[in-house]
């Protein structure tokens, strides 16, 4: 195996594009190195992107936020502007693993690992985040929900890497939240999860909503019916019940060592309901 630490995205793309054998991007390494140790993958080349300036910081612009691909999740919480605008995305990122993992893991890594149970993906999907993809053919931007196409599989082509995630500009009276269920209080992989992003009108009525669920299908699912269930409401209990039912209907989970079909389906609805209430409060709703 070869290890390379290029200084530019262009150089990284060229290394990945020209690699013979299996090449992997290394950012925080909290998934990649675990898979290497467990012999699930045997890379021929690791391209460490942490020394590439364009991946290293969080930038705020008129269009929203740009979060570099090697920014560790711990750093998201240290950016007050980001926490204020996207508390749900930040809390999702900060739920991954321990403080030790937080120092290393990245949102882009979480996305590219493409686990159905990834914590940041439902929050990013709810937030309408996009991935800035750079490859041999140049740059493109892709909605986050289109990056993952199956468990462990992304739509990235050979030579492509994600340089950053962008989060859109926040309208007034908006809020987001992310909740997951784990058996312990820390360190577990989500058994199921829900990300909710809302914008309210002046009266506190939900005027736009996005609801995404994790670990209940092969990929994170955006649930338009769940959004519909609460748009036009002030999140009264009937609306929340409709939201939960719509979420349950969108679940197509599996039985595995972490949870049952029944449990995941039922709790996904509960979490969506609870997350919606938090997002609503954050958006200024009462």
């Amino acid at each position, binding site marked *: *195996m*070869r*290890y390379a*630490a290029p200084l530019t995205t262009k150089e990284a793309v060229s290394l990945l594009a020209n690699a013979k054998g299996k090449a992997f991007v*290394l950012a925080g*390494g*909290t998934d990649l*190195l*675990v898979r*290497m*140790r*467990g012999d699930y993958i045997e890379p021929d080349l*690791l391209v*460490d992107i*942490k020394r590439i300036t364009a991946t290293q910081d969080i930038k705020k612009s008129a269009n929203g936020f740009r979060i570099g691909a090697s920014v*560790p999740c*711990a750093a998201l919480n240290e950016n007050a502007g980001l926490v204020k605008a996207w508390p749900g995305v930040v809390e999702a990122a900060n739920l991954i*693993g*321990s*403080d*030790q*993992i937080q*120092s*290393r893991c990245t949102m882009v890594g979480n996305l590219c690992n493409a686990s159905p149970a990834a914590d940041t993906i439902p929050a990013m999907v709810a937030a309408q985040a996009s991935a800035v993809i750079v490859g041999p053919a140049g740059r493109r931007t892709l909605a986050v929900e289109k990056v993952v196409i199956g468990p462990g599989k992304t739509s990235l082509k050979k030579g492509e890497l994600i340089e950053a995630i962008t989060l859109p500009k926040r309208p007034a009276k908006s809020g987001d939240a992310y909740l997951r269920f784990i058996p312990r*209080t*820390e*360190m577990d992989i989500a058994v199921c999860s829900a990300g909710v992003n809302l914008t309210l009108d002046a009266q506190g009525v939900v005027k736009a909503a996005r609801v995404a669920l994790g670990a209940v299908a092969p990929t994170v699912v955006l649930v338009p019916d769940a959004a519909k269930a609460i748009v036009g409401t002030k999140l009264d209990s009937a609306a929340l019940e409709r939201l939960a039912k719509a979420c349950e209907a969108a679940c197509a989970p599996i039985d595995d060592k972490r949870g049952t079909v029944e449990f995941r389906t039922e709790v996904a609805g509960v979490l969506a309901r609870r997350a919606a209430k938090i997002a609503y409060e954050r958006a200024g709703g009462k």
Partner: protein
Amino acid sequence: MSGVHISTTVNGDSVEFVCHPSESLLDVLRNRIGLIGAKEGCSTGDCGACSITLDGRLVCSCLVLGAEVEGRDITTVEGMADGEKLHPLQINFLKHAALQCGICTPGFLVAAKALLDRNPSPTEEQIRFALAGNLCRCTGYDKIVRAVQATAKEIAKTTKKKR
């Protein structure tokens, strides 16, 4: 498999080594630099026994490659004491019997120091969540949390005095 040559800083000392590109920083520390304080309990980032800091951030050294640390700044449990003067956390871990077998202790000390450096007066809940990445199977964490609380109290006292 050709080796990677790395120059880095460990506990303030300049260190050079050659390692396999796939070798973990934990293995480098233990087998090439001779620092055995960091332990391997799992090699998957789940137990925290290999905790160190890398450029000031708390990490599991089993999930860092030796090849990654060129020019970085590493600290380990071996760098905690100031000469023959133990760090207050080390003193309080002993005073409060916060270790039984002791295998997790280096990781807990490094993690607790990272917490107190960032937040010198944490609540019990903040301590418990900050140490959730370090597994201890002997103590039920009771005396560990108490030792960290006692250290935080001492820090608060000394900073008060300084003012």
